[in-house]
């Protein structure tokens, strides 16, 4: 087994789609159409568009593409912070490829690199640490972003830097946490939702318990799902079954990877290095309480926020109104007046058009694809 192709079998997908259609005909579901399901994670959004799942599902199911793409919620001002640090003459600035094209107030990291700043794309935070070892006369700043999936790798890299006494390695921490944002969305009540497809890889780290309130307090089914087409379809079927029986539970479809308690080693590394911020800004959504982490004082020497002067200006986010509505599921990407006209993957206006996990980019890229 290679854990990929097996979960793309078109025949099994057809059968699942039939079962979903059959389920949708049950009277208890017919009474509540449309069924609106939010897939939280950008990875799911990507698969849904890549395999054209939306168009294969029976009528009456609406998929809402949620805020779970870290690049899509990266504020312009944070990109400006990166640029200010990268502009220091002794700095090598390193980050993941996805972060390179996000527009800042004036420009993106990629544009700044083409203008001569030393900005490098890395595959892993460990590659940034390696840059620090190889370039002792330079300061290496790694821009770490992402949800709980990437948090442990950044934490372990920082611990390794501390253990080895590497003194020219710094972290600009932009790690965020999805659960407070889901709570904010639900509290907000703007978005009518019937249930969630939950983020499989965040869950392999944090486990299932953090979502319990969504089922208990808000009565929404929450199905933690893998990323292949069969995973997503099976999760939709499980969700419909819960709805049909008026149940609301956290259920784990992705049992091959996600254990109920998550990954304890990863959790321990995160807890040692990071602490919650009181609030953090998400592009398009604004400030959300406890939705980000920062570096603990014990690791202050590695904290780029303390070591470097960052620009003070924190502007309004007026220009991203449409992105915010898409992130909340109030607008479908193609309903944005800029979609595909001014805003395209090669000339992104909003960050949702940058990453292949962003709803707008996925929608643009795979408009005509139907693989299954």
């Amino acid at each position, binding site marked *: 087994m290679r854990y990929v192709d097996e979960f793309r079998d078109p025949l099994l997908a057809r059968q699942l789609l039939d079962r979903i259609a059959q389920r949708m005909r049950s009277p208890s579901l017919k009474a509540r159409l449309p069924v609106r399901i939010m897939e939280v994670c950008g990875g799911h959004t990507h698969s849904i568009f890549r395999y054209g799942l939306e168009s294969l599902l029976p009528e009456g199911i609406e998929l809402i593409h949620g805020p779970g793409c870290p690049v899509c919620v990266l504020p312009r001002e944070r990109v400006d912070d990166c640029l200010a640090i990268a502009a220091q003459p002794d700095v090598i600035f390193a980050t993941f490829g996805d972060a390179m094209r996000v527009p800042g107030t004036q420009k993106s990291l990629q544009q700044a690199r083409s203008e001569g700043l030393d900005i490098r794309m890395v595959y892993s935070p460990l590659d940034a640490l390696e840059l620090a070892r190889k370039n002792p006369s330079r300061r290496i700043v790694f821009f770490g972003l992402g949800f709980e*999936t990437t948090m442990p790798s950044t934490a372990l890299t920082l611990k390794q830097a501390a253990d080895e006494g590497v003194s020219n390695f710094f972290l600009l921490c932009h790690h965020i946490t999805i659960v407070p944002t889901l709570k904010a969305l639900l509290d907000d009540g703007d978005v009518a939702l019937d249930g969630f497809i939950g983020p499989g890889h965040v869950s392999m780290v944090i486990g299932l318990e953090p979502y319990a309130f969504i089922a208990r307090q808000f009565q929404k089914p929450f199905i933690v799902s893998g990323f292949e087409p069969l995973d997503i379809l099976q999760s939709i079927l499980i969700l419909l079954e819960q709805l049909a029986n008026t149940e609301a539970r956290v259920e784990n479809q992705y049992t091959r990877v996600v254990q109920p308690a998550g990954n304890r*080693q990863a959790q321990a590394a995160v807890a040692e290095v990071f602490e919650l911020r009181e609030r953090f800004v998400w592009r398009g959504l604004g400030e959300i309480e406890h939705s980000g982490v920062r570096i603990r004082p014990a690791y202050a020497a590695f904290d780029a926020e303390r070591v470097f002067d960052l620009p003070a200006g924190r502007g309004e986010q007026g220009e991203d109104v449409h992105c915010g509505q898409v992130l909340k599921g109030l607008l479908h990407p193609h309903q944005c007046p800029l979609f595909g006209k001014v805003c395209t993957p090669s000339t992104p206006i909003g960050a949702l058009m940058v990453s292949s996990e962003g709803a707008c980019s996925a929608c643009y890229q795979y408009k005509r694809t139907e693989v299954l």
Partner: protein
Amino acid sequence: MCLGVPGQIIAIDDSDRSVAIVEVSSVRRRINLACVLNDAQPPESLVGGWVLVHVGFAMNLIDADEARKTLELLSELQSFADEQGMQEAGIDEIR
């Protein structure tokens, strides 16, 4: 960026630093195993097993039995649907 990819552990490269050689989508990479190791098991015991790889780290072991169970369940759905299809088409009478 958030997408993890399955990979198979080929060999342990540096036990002290928990580094293994892992084949991910036919490419061999050095991958950190810190998140999937525990004191009870020597790293060598993981060779041949599959892990979910994410930005240079193995984030979790992939459970082969659970994967099989999921697929079996889906195939059962299939035979169930086949039977239904046959019944709906009246085929069971001919059998």
